């Protein structure tokens, strides 16, 4: 039965029995009850008897110590915005729909086509802020934070997929590419890939009936009415909280804000109004994947701290018999061929494969099973291993991705090394795809088994190194991030050493007063410092300088020099959290340092705390000072809200004061948008300028004269200001020495680099090393707090285990024949091979090697071997395959 494919936004059909999408978890079939006619075909076909038509929702009770709410988000449905024509004109799609169009698993298999006629579009317009920043038409005043980036990404991918020229235009009010490295991406899209960015909010989309093209009407910055025709329009829909999540929150008595996001405090960003219930992701506020992943870890950290006493209880341990030494024995291979119900057996002639396997060299035993992965088959395999004294095992069944670890455990359970195992995937790579040609499938199954048997004969037992973990953390940097990380690790029950280079804790936040929401930073900081200093698990060392570093995950050793006497101390620890922070840029621009009426935003905030704003008549603020320019391409993320915060402060104290903010894009992302709106309502005047026409600033006795070209008036205006506040961007703390000693990579802006931008945002590439706060990139205090909790959480996953078992799949150097050519040193993506200057040899540390094999395949003298993938272990497969004749 066919049903509408909702994942693909209805652009194609799927069956009534379906897997939602390729990455779904669990990757299992479901029945669409709306479309199912109850024919019973699937029930009869399923050998495992897994189909239950009358399956019902069940209620179960679980007793837990803490709860994390992450109900997720839903793209805004623009059906009601009739001026955009969604649902009316087929070639108007939402950004979610366009994502599916771009996807290989989407309705058009990754070919960019428009829905109406399946023609490749010649031009596409993205309309930003659909369902965001729009109180009037949808009630969502917030910025969804992610649309500017995804629209840019979609435009780039579309350009790549479409072979001809694609005119990709993004209509926006402000481009909010404020994340780490996002500005560079935006610049690449604009300057290298030719994506056009137009500053305008589109007011009408209509269709050219003959062609299905769309007429996009808008008013440009100078007030001129314009229209352009596009093949397709993509609505960049914002993020919303689904009704089900609101109901859930209400049931749990968790407070929501006016937009239905969970209400949180800036100093406790993942804690809901109800103690013990934490939140993360878009439910907490609009955010991108890195932010969501970070918060997820942060929530886990707090939830885990509540449960730390119970850690390690209610667990079971498996006892493993001692390993038999088989190194001197000839291979004795047992082959187990799986029917996988009818998945394999229904196509492949399993008995004939089994019989064939029995005739292969070194094979002493064969068997076939209905389900080789079942628990009783494991017991059977164990018996057979013992009975036939097998020393290598081949299972011909499915993908090693799913069951290899389980079979390896079966081997271990009877004293065989787990690496004496090989699988032949005769299901996913064979019976499933060659179901129409059983003879060929049987032949291929034999080929795959022959290859697996050949390889099994070459396998060697490998030792997984077990290393102990020093259950102590080192946190570098005693600012808000470092202190939170230390405190949370302490709460998890781990010893922490917090080193700070200054004499005092607090870092840059000591220069700050309030968050934009009104959170008072000073008392928060005092309390935090008190908690950190008072925590029995946390040792604080101030005036400390890292002077030496060594070791690997779980076993690091760091030398520090303390105080003016340079007292030396060596700290042994299992993990590191880097929280070295950042500072405010010291402007070279706009008479800063020459005229004392020119200040930075941080200095302005000081002044407002001290003297208030009653004496101020006119204040001008200039944005992007020391950001988004040739010297510092990146956006500093925090300056727009900083300006809005101070502007509001002035206006609240002295409504008559005039405040002008000269900006390039206002980037008050997420819920910060409300403050931007409030500022405009209170009469703060925002004037946009282009990077190539920055304001001109002159000093005069009567005030600071600031001239800028007003885009709306299309002329230069000059403002006489009592005070000019520069929104000076952020600069990473000076970590040249530290990064050199600890060999930690930084980007060109001096911020540390995470292991994976999206999926491992607080891990560093070296295992056991984590990152948080502004050392990672510019961010707000609340973001630094959640990130430090996340780092503590990730560190906990290491510290919670007294030992780590390392993968045995690592590269090994034959130092006898190595000529120290350094090719491996230069090739390794993780910088693991090193020239040991004392021993004069190249070394690859087992504990650091990721096992990719790059070094092994490039070594000119073939002296590096990757265990389990040695050259002959691969070559024998090639040989065995081709020995059968293709």
């Amino acid at each position, binding site marked *: 039965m066919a049903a509408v494919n909702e994942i693909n936004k209805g652009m194609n059909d799927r069956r009534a029995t379906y897997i939602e999408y390729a990455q779904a978890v669990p990757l299992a079939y479901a029945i669409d009850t709306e479309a199912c006619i109850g024919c019973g075909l699937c029930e009869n076909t399923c050998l495992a008897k897994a189909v239950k038509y009358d399956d019902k929702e069940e209620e179960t009770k679980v007793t837990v110590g803490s709860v994390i709410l992450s109900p997720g988000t839903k793209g805004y449905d623009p059906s009601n915005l009739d001026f955009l024509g969604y649902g009316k004109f087929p070639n108007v799609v939402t950004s979610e729909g366009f994502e599916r169009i771009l996807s290989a698993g989407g309705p058009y298999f990754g070919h960019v086509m428009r829905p109406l006629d399946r023609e490749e579009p010649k031009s596409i317009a993205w309309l930003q802020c659909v369902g965001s920043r729009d109180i009037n038409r949808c009630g969502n005043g917030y910025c969804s934070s992610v649309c500017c980036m995804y629209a840019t990404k979609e435009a780039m991918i579309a350009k790549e997929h479409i072979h001809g020229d694609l005119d990709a235009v993004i209509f926006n009010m402000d481009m909010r590419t404020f994340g780490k490295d996002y500005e560079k991406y935006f610049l690449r899209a604009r300057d290298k890939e030719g994506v056009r960015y137009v500053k305008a909010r589109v007011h009408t989309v209509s269709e050219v009936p003959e062609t299905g093209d769309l007429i996009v009407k808008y008013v440009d910055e100078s007030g001129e009415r314009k229209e352009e025709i596009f093949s397709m329009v993509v609505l960049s829909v914002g993020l919303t909280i689904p009704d089900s999540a609101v109901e859930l929150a209400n049931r749990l008595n968790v407070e929501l804000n006016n937009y239905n996001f969970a209400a949180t405090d800036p100093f406790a960003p993942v804690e809901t109004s109800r103690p013990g219930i934490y939140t993360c992701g878009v439910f907490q506020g609009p955010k991108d994947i890195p932010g969501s992943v970070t918060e997820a870890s942060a929530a886990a950290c707090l939830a885990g701290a509540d449960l730390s006493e119970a850690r390690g209880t209610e667990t079971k341990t498996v006892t493993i018999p001692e390993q038999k030494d088989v190194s001197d024995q000839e291979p004795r291979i047992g082959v187990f061929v799986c029917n996988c119900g009818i998945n394999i057996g229904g196509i492949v002639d399993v008995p004939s494969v089994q019989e064939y396997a029995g005739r292969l060299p070194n094979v002493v035993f064969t068997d076939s099973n209905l389900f080789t992965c079942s628990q009783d088959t494991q017991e059977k395999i164990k018996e057979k291993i013992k009975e036939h004294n097998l020393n290598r095992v081949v299972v011909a069944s499915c993908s090693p991705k799913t069951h290899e670890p389980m079979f390896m455990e079966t081997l271990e359970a009877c004293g065989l090394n787990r690496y004496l195992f090989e699988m032949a995937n005769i299901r996913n790579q064979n019976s499933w795809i060659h179901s129409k040609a059983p003879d060929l499938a049987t032949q291929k199954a034999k080929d795959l088994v022959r290859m697996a048997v050949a390889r099994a004969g070459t396998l060697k037992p490998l030792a997984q190194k077990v290393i102990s973990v020093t259950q102590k953390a080192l946190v570098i940097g005693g600012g808000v991030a470092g202190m939170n990380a230390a405190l949370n690790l302490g709460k998890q029950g781990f010893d922490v050493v917090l080193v700070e280079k200054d004499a005092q804790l607090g870092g840059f936040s000591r220069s700050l007063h309030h968050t934009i929401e009104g959170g008072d930073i000073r008392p928060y900081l005092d309390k935090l410092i008190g908690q950190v200093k008072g925590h029995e698990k946390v040792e604080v060392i101030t005036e400390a300088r890292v002077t030496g570093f060594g070791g690997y995950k779980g076993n690091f050793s760091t030398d520090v020099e303390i105080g003016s006497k340079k007292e030396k101390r060596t700290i042994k620890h299992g993990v590191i959290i880097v929280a070295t922070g950042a500072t405010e840029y010291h402007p070279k621009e706009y008479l800063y340092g020459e005229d004392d009426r020119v200040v930075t935003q941080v200095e302005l905030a000081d002044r407002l705390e001290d003297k208030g704003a009653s004496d101020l008549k006119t204040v001008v603020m200039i944005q992007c000072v020391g950001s988004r320019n040739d010297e510092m391409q990146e956006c500093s993320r925090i300056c727009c809200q900083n300006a809005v915060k101070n502007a509001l402060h002035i206006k609240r104290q002295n409504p008559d004061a005039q405040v002008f903010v000269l900006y390039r894009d206002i980037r008050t992302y997420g819920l910060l948008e409300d403050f931007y709106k409030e500022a405009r309502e209170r009469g703060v005047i925002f004037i946009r300028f282009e990077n190539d026409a920055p304001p001109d600033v002159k000093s005069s006795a009567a005030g600071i004269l600031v001239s800028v070209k007003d885009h709306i008036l299309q002329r230069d205006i000059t403002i006489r200001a009592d005070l000019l506040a520069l929104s000076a961007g952020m600069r990473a703390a000076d970590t040249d020495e530290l990064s050199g000693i600890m060999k930690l990579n930084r980007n060109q802006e001096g911020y540390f680099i995470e292991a994976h931008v999206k999926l491992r945002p607080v891990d560093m590439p070296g295992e056991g090393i984590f990152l948080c706060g502004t050392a990672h990139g510019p961010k707000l205090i609340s973001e630094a707090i959640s990130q430090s909790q996340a780092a503590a959480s990730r560190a906990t996953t290491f510290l919670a285990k007294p030992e780590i078992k390392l993968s045995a799949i690592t590269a090994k150097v034959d130092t006898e024949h190595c*000529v120290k050519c*350094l090719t491996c040193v*230069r*090739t390794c993506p993780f910088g693991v091979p090193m020239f040991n200057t004392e021993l004069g040899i190249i070394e690859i540390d087992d504990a650091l090697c990721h096992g990719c094999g790059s070094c092994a395949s*490039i*070594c*000119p*003298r*073939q002296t590096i071997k990757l265990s389990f993938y040695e050259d002959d272990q691969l070559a024998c497969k090639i040989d065995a395959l081709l020995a059968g004749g293709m």
Partner: protein
Amino acid sequence: MIVAKRKPFDEIKDFLKDYKKVLTAGCGTCVAVCLAGGEKEVAVLNAELDMARRLDDNPIELGAITIERQCDREYLEALDSMVGDYDAVLSLACGAGIQFLAERYPEKPVFPGVDTTFIGVNQDVGWYEERCRSCSSCVLGLTAGICPVTMCAKGLYNGPCGGTNKGSCEISKDQPCAWYMIYERLSKQNRLDNILKITPVQDWQNQKPRTVIQPGYKTSENSAEK
């Protein structure tokens, strides 16, 4: 390090066309380091030769060995027991190694598998640049550590010539002008005096085979400096 590059395959194939059993001998030092003649390259070349000769219906039997250095007699010894089994030897060592090998087995045809290219440095994996022409009288002390013989396309001793082109050599914009660099570096080091003097005509010493005997190592009367 001595940098070499693999000879064109057709040339190698042509050398060996009349031989049925060939030993491919790699060298484990310079040419291995520059990814031209170590174990890996021996294996690749043998695979190619095997396939090519089968296609020609003229199969060849190939042996493979890579020794530490073909420019050392003691290491060459490892070949003594093998060479007899082959009709010819294909050496992937530098020109020196190949000659030394050929000298050891005067009865056996020995062929080069690489073109020895220069003495150079390693810029990155697989990327080498020439730095020395072994002229036997180093002027780097005068020229701020930049060799005019190697790095100047005309080998000028009193450059730069009029062809210097905004810091590049006249032969290519990608080739920096050695003398421009020499000038810049000396000027930064306040040592321009070095090149204000006319550097006299060079006594070329690399125009005949040279022998070096380090002082204190002269072993017999006969090995007097040549």
